């Protein structure tokens, strides 16, 4: 189906404008969660504490994985824009795969913490840590589902250059999830 021309008062695509508005609201959500983590940082009356339990090498690798997924995402956008269906599928699948790898590493980290005695109910660190990183992980999971949806649409032949805006908006979400992790990695893991 051919898209119909839409004239907007801003001259911008309304879907993209609306999505940036959504991203703005997400800034406030994650801002509140990160602030809560920082406010309660170092106030736990019992362990385990961040120094005792956080695994920097593992998280550094998962950070690298998420950064590379952002690269795969922009390469998918470049491929769909030039009408290259094969590489659009390859990069969309690569992005989703890297997102799943990140989620797998987070699941491993969470499981290890629970085995070492840190749950969401253990102390203030556990509560704020699991809520913050868990909310981020849920966003990654939604992103993976969205990417797989785009991949299926591509397989169905419904994701050509005329639909590049759909991949661009998916990418905006994915990169936002990435920048949130950039902040979490520094604030939670590296700054003690």
């Amino acid at each position, binding site marked *: 189906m051919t898209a119909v021309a839409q004239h907007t008062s801003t001259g911008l695509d309304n879907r993209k404008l609306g999505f940036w508005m959504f991203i703005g609201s997400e800034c406030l959500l994650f801002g*509140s969660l990160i602030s809560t983590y920082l406010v309660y940082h170092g106030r736990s009356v019992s362990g385990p504490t961040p120094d005792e339990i956080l695994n920097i090498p593992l998280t550094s690798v998962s950070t690298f994985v998420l950064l590379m997924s952002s690269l795969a995402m922009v390469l998918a956008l470049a491929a769909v824009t030039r009408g290259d269906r094969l590489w659009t599928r390859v990069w969309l699948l690569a992005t989703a795969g890297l997102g799943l790898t990140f989620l797998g590493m987070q699941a491993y980290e969470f499981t290890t913490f629970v085995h070492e005695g840190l749950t969401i109910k253990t102390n203030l660190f556990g509560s704020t840590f699991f809520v913050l990183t868990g909310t981020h992980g849920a966003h990654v999971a939604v992103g993976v589902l969205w990417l797989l949806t785009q991949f299926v649409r591509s397989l169905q032949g419904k994701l050509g250059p005329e639909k590049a805006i759909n991949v661009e908006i998916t990418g905006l979400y994915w990169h936002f999830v990435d920048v949130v992790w950039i902040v979490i990695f520094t604030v939670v893991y590296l700054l003690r």
Partner: protein
Amino acid sequence: MSDQLSHAEHQHPSVATYVTVAAVLTVITLVEVGVFYIPTFHPVLAPVLLTLSATKFALVVMFYMHLKSDSRIFTMMFSVPLLIALAVGIALLFLFGVFTLGGGGA
């Protein structure tokens, strides 16, 4: 057409730019982890890590989210809530005594 309208808004960076940005992001991440493990940097750990993190944040937002070349309206719609979130966060840290006006931490 709205899809064409979107492409008229800006010119996406080239694939080479995307790969270069990814390489820079990787190097900065390696530096961050290195700084964390090297005791010499511990007195300045917070400002160094925050600067490196802000650089990574800016690179992703400017090049991968295209704010560098896209409409200023999008930049406003992102940066205003971001600044509000930052201001609220800093205010909370003062309110709960994590930061104090005397310069010391709780």
